[in-house]
């Protein structure tokens, strides 16, 4: 808690907490980053699950930079928002679940993209790789639940534990 107390009293944290436009600007970035991340990974996952078979799997690899940009925007904006109220964020179980889900979803995405984009073979062979469909389905669930946790946290900051 000492670290978190220190963190929320740093000049950056105070700037985010007290400047009128900083918080909504960071939230806007966080929302747009979310759309980039879920949009691109969502399409890759759905394609693996059999949706829009006209999209070549190898072509969906070009959506990964979109996902990374979205993730980077959200890592930055999320960290900034966190610093402004670090103690409260960290003490919320909903927030902890969200962060845990993001870590798991990130590992999930890394394993899936490794299998999908380095195995070679045609699309039918790629989606038939062991575990690939399960990883695509779990990825969708993890990201959607992470978004929901973020909203629950925002409106139940003190009694969502």
């Amino acid at each position, binding site marked *: 808690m000492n670290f978190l107390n220190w963190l929320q009293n740093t000049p950056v944290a105070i700037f985010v907490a007290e400047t009128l436009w900083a918080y909504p600007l960071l*939230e806007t970035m966080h929302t747009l980053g979310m759309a980039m991340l879920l*949009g691109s990974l969502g399409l890759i996952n759905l394609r693996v699950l059999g949706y829009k078979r006209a999209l070549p799997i190898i072509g969906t690899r070009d959506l990964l930079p979109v996902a990374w940009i979205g993730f980077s925007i959200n890592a930055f904006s999320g960290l900034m928002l966190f610093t402004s109220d670090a103690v409260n964020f960290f003490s919320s179980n909903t927030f902890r679940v969200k962060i845990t889900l993001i870590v798991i979803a990130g590992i999930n995405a890394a394993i899936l993209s490794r299998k999908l984009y380095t195995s070679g073979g045609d699309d039918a062979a790629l989606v038939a790789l062991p575990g690939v469909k399960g990883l695509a389905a779990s990825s969708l669930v993890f990201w959607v639940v992470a978004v929901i946790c973020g909203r629950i946290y*925002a409106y139940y900051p003190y009694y969502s534990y």
Partner: protein
Amino acid sequence: MAFLQWLETTAIADAVRTIPWLYPALESAHYIGIACLVGGIMLIDLRLLGVAKKLPIATMVTLLPWVWAGFLINLVTGGTIFIYGATGFGTNPPFQLKMALIALAGINAFLFEIAARRGRNSWVIDGQAPAMVKGVATLSLILWMSVVATGRWMAYV
């Protein structure tokens, strides 16, 4: 104003006010709607602007139903939240701007639907968006980003 005040006395407004989980549930659904709407339209727009060229434009434009589904989800969830706080939202300048931007983005999306349908045998198949379509795609990205921005801004005014 009388109409806005009346909205706040309806059963819907009352439900949002008294059921503790309803507001975060509506917000969650609104955000999933954003992911479908903005995530979907952004993928289409980026493809039209030349990102991920191995994905055929003809297939990417068939993602439009996700955009409309997201729009519908957000119309219902946003509408419900509006009814609950009608006097506050209705008189909030960033909210009014947000609605105007959604109308513009909607017109833009509608123009795109027409362009995509009309072009099914030409540029959609070739995979080369003409300059006019790229303009529509750029405008679409700017408008939806502004919609999200005004949506966050309105909460702090």
